[in-house]
């Protein structure tokens, strides 16, 4: 287990290293300098470049960039009053994390419920309903679902606030819009796993020895179906981040997703790179957790060193 974990860890660190390096060279490729202001004289520009070390050789700049990044210094944002990127990111993180967490919890529970019902009532109306919900959830993009909810629930019915993030009520619609994707994936997965588990001999045994129907489902079927759900942690985190980019934009929520899209629009390069690296760290950690959790549960993966 230790060897397996160490191996995963090395790969994770190496991945981050590559992403950081690539972002550095992309920064070099970008046209112009941060000091493209017409009002600056050449002399002033040179002075500024010297001050920020932009006239140093590439290797020196690269080493400094990596050292800074390792300490969490992603540079300063041009757009947000020259404040450090990391500070802005950390300030906005709680909002996105809250939204993502809420969506994840709702998604996992509703998805599991749908999947379980679908499997237990296999090939009935309930099963079809669960399948339809899963297909719709995967097919309808969040940037269509968000406006749809705003229009009907927000404007026409007036039940919930359309935008901004002032109270918990404001988080309901964006959370639901985000969670639909999670619901779809979990429901699909759960249904397949449950169907497989329900056909096993130990379920028949549990029934035969007289356990209640609920007992069989909860204690044996659901429990055993849950193990493979770990394999979807990574895709779910990626999906939630992708969704948050548009959902936060649509609902005007001051989170990291909204920040990122704004930075792209105003070409705030340090902010873009900082956020990209931030996302990369998030994804790499999610993948690491998934791999290690899977290694603990399924010893075969540890031995072969990787999953197929």
């Amino acid at each position: 287990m230790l060897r397996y974990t160490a191996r995963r860890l090395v790969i994770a660190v190496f991945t981050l290293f590559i992403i950081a390096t690539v972002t550095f060279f992309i920064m070099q490729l970008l046209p112009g300098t941060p000091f493209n202001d017409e009002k600056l004289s050449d002399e002033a520009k040179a002075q500024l470049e010297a001050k920020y070390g932009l006239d140093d050789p590439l290797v020196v700049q690269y080493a400094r960039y990596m050292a800074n990044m390792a300490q969490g210094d992603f540079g300063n944002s041009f757009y947000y009053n020259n404040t450090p990127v990391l500070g802005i990111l950390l300030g906005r993180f709680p909002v996105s994390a809250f939204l993502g967490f809420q969506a994840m919890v709702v998604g996992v529970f509703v998805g599991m419920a749908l999947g379980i019902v679908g499997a237990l009532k296999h090939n009935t109306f309930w099963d079809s309903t669960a399948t339809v919900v899963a297909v719709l959830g995967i097919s309808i993009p969040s940037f269509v679902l968000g406006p749809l909810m705003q229009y009907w629930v927000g404007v026409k019915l007036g039940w919930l606030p359309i935008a901004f993030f002032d109270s918990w009520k404001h988080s309901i619609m964006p959370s639901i819009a985000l969670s639909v994707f999670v619901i779809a994936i979990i429901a699909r997965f759960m249904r397949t796993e449950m169907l497989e588990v329900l056909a096993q001999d130990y379920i028949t045994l549990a029934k035969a020895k007289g356990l209640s129907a609920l007992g069989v489902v909860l204690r044996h079927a659901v429990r055993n179906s849950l193990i493979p759900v770990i394999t979807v942690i990574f895709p779910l985190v990626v999906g939630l981040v992708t969704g948050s980019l548009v959902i936060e934009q649509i609902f005007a929520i001051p989170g990291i997703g909204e920040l990122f899209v704004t930075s792209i629009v105003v070409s705030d390069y340090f902010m873009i790179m900082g956020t990209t690296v931030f996302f990369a760290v998030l994804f790499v950690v999610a993948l690491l957790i998934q791999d290690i959790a899977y290694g603990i549960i399924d010893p075969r993966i540890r031995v072969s060193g990787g999953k197929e």
Partner: protein
Amino acid sequence: METGRRATLTPEMFEPVGMDAQEGERIAGPPSNFWRDAWRRLKRNKVALFGLVSIVFVIAAAYVGPLISGYGPYAQDLSVRLQGSSSEHWFGTDSFGRDLFTRVWQGTQISLYIAFLAAFIDIAIGIGYGAISAYYGGWIDSVMQRIIEILVGIPNLVVVILVMIILQPGILTITFALVITGWVGMARLVRGQVMQLKEEEFFLAARSLGAGTGRLIWKHLIPNIVAIAIINLMFTIPNAIFFEAFLSFIGLGITVPQASLGSLVSDGYKFLQGDSYLLWFPAGVLCLLMISFNLLADGLRDALDPRMKK
């Protein structure tokens, strides 16, 4: 009564009718093959068939629509700005007075083009990479798998956005961005399949009979992974459609005046309060396309590979 019946049984009645050894081997119907079986299974799946029909419909509309509308996709007419659906403009007009019906189908063309192109390149690279990795094995496989392991850890969201920032936005850039990470899944799938096929007896037989590398790959490996490649292709296309629309929505996609379904949804969203039809028409086509591809992909998976039912 009893005796009567016994009397009717004569030895002549038990004469052999004479069996033709060939008769049992006669093939009653036309011979079936893998693809015909798959098509038969798919036809029984009404939901998947609906997906197929509506994909054909959308593709046809995308190419016929702009021709029959009588308007150019970029032709502006400021005197008819923001008009709702009418007999003149079936989907209404946008804020520049352009015909939305024409623009939606033109956008569908571009979305489909990007999705198909990206998916096919994915498959081509994926099959090549996966097959080589698994076929040669050993250190080649090790190196190639380490590369994949690292690429898998970098989510396409990050890569796609980085690529879109440094390159000029446009159709080919989006395709390129989608392909960079897209092929990895296919490569892993193909590698797994080829590893399995290599252990099969027919493969050993072909090798013992002296088949060369080219023949082994083209005649014995590739035909056996076509099914899995098609299934993967059908899941890749809606994914690519989604990602293109997503990029256009956050402002990294198609540049004006060109339009894709994603950029039309994005433009239409700005008019959600007053002229929401600008959002619903492109969004409707986008959702129909996504749903249809996902349904067909599910159906194809069941039809082509009944074991893979997941």
